[in-house]
């Protein structure tokens, strides 16, 4: 661990911070449906996901060889470029978290890398066709594949279980949801913690600390695993709320179908050589299961905002990455200024998020579109139906009142 320069130290810390944001940004993928259907209590769910992420980080021995998967030319990449890319990715992750929009953390990192690489070495350093095949096409395919599978599975499961009572099946659906959520968590830990390990290892190689081609040192594996697990445990409640409650209303059978579809798509895609984003698969699956139930609705206004965020991920993270690279090119003061700007930007976003905090306690209280004034007013005066499902008790102990702090969204009412 000798000869770690200031810049290298900054890059390692920044990479771990990115790993941390990746953790809480992506908790929703595994646990949003489980939490919103009441299969697990929110705290239990994120704890389970965190443990599985940590385990996943140690599971695979095959460490990401490239951090961008061929998107940019990584030969002779400078440490500053990696730093600038991470700055772009972290800020985009935080911003989408503030808005409660699920977007792909990997795509944010890709965007940051592209922006920083272009600023550093020009457009020739970006492999344009790889961008199309690895980022743009999957972004369209993932929600379609996962959504269609989840929709058909939801239809099927409702048809089969029609005769059995809700009481009799709820335990089974609960177990099924937890299992598939666990698989998603495990796969996430393996994939995404590896990515951070790859970044730190690349930075160490670039800085001449370890020999090219060597495996990541143990402390890198441990710290990357812990960072992603801590982030997961923190829980990105804003995104969990959007995915579990905002896109559609999920009943346990839908949650089970959606999560199973997501787990299958993620595993199938990464092993058949056409990687699909975890976040996009999960969001697609949730929407598909919303469409699959009779009378189910997808809130397209929320979905549209999410799609817009997906489209903006690459350019936005790229712009920030390019700006950061422009500063770091100026020398040491530029690097320090970039670091200061990153901290300041994160602080601003965090402060903004405190205005309407979404926490473990109110994650299932929808302040979203459909709970308009009328709905909540009716809910406030109507006593809960006598024959409530067992799960509903866990799900909501309070009826959300009209959220005064919620800004008026144009699409509401």
């Amino acid at each position, binding site marked *: 661990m000798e000869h770690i320069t200031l810049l290298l130290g900054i890059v390692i810390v920044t990479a771990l911070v990115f790993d941390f944001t990746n953790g809480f940004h992506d908790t929703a993928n595994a646990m949003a449906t489980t939490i919103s259907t009441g299969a697990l209590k929110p705290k239990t769910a994120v704890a389970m996901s965190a443990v599985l992420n940590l385990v*996943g980080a140690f*599971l*695979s021995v095959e460490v990401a060889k490239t951090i961008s998967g061929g998107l940019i030319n990584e030969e002779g990449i400078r440490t500053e470029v990696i730093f600038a890319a991470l700055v772009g990715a972290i800020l985009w992750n935080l911003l989408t978290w503030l808005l409660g929009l699920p977007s792909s953390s990997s795509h944010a990192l890709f965007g940051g890398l592209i922006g920083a690489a272009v600023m550093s070495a020009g457009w020739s350093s970006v492999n344009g*066709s790889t961008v*199309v*095949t690895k980022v743009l*096409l999957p972004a369209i*395919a993932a929600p379609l*594949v*996962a959504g*269609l*599978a*989840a929709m*058909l*599975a*939801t239809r*099927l*499961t409702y048809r*089969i*279980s029609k*005769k*059995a*009572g809700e009481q*009799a*099946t709820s335990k*089974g*659906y609960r177990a*099924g949801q937890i*299992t598939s959520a666990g*698989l998603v968590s*495990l*796969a996430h830990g*393996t994939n995404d913690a590896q990515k951070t390990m790859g970044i730190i290892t690349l930075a160490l190689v670039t800085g001449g600390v370890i020999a090219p081609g060597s495996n990541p040192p143990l402390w890198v594996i441990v710290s990357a695993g812990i960072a992603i697990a801590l982030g997961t445990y923190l829980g990105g409640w804003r995104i969990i709320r959007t995915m579990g409650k905002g896109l559609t209303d999920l009943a346990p*059978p839908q949650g*089970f*179908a959606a999560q*199973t*579809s997501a*787990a*299958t*798509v993620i*595993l*199938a*895609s*990464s*092993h*058949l*050589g*056409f990687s*699909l984003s975890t976040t996009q698969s999960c969001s697609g699956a949730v929407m598909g299961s919303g469409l699959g139930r009779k009378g189910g609705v997808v809130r397209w206004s929320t979905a549209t905002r999410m799609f817009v965020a997906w489209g903006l991920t690459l350019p936005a993270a790229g712009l920030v990455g390019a700006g950061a690279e422009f500063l770091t090119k100026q020398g040491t003061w530029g690097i320090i200024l970039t670091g200061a700007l990153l901290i300041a930007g994160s602080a601003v976003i965090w402060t903004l998020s405190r205005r309407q905090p979404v926490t473990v306690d109110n994650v299932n209280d929808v302040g979203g579109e459909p709970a308009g004034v009328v709905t909540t007013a009716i809910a406030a005066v109507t006593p809960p139906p006598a024959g409530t499902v067992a799960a509903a008790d866990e799900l909501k102990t309070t009826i959300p009142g009209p959220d005064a702090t919620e800004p008026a969204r144009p699409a509401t009412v």
Partner: protein
Amino acid sequence: MKIDWAALGSVFGVSLIVTVALVGLFTLGIVGLSKRESASAQGDTATLAVTGAYACFAACAAAVAYGIYLIVA
């Protein structure tokens, strides 16, 4: 630009079939087990339904195990 349509197609097909099959099997298992409860309420044992249910769950467990194997490998 070379788009690997074959890989994309197989991801599509495999995901669809596996998801629907797993969800179907698991639901059959749940329904089978629920038959036991209603049967025992009438003093019967729904042996066939219960055996079938456990077979379904076993198939699902095997799929999960294969999933973990894919993650580790």
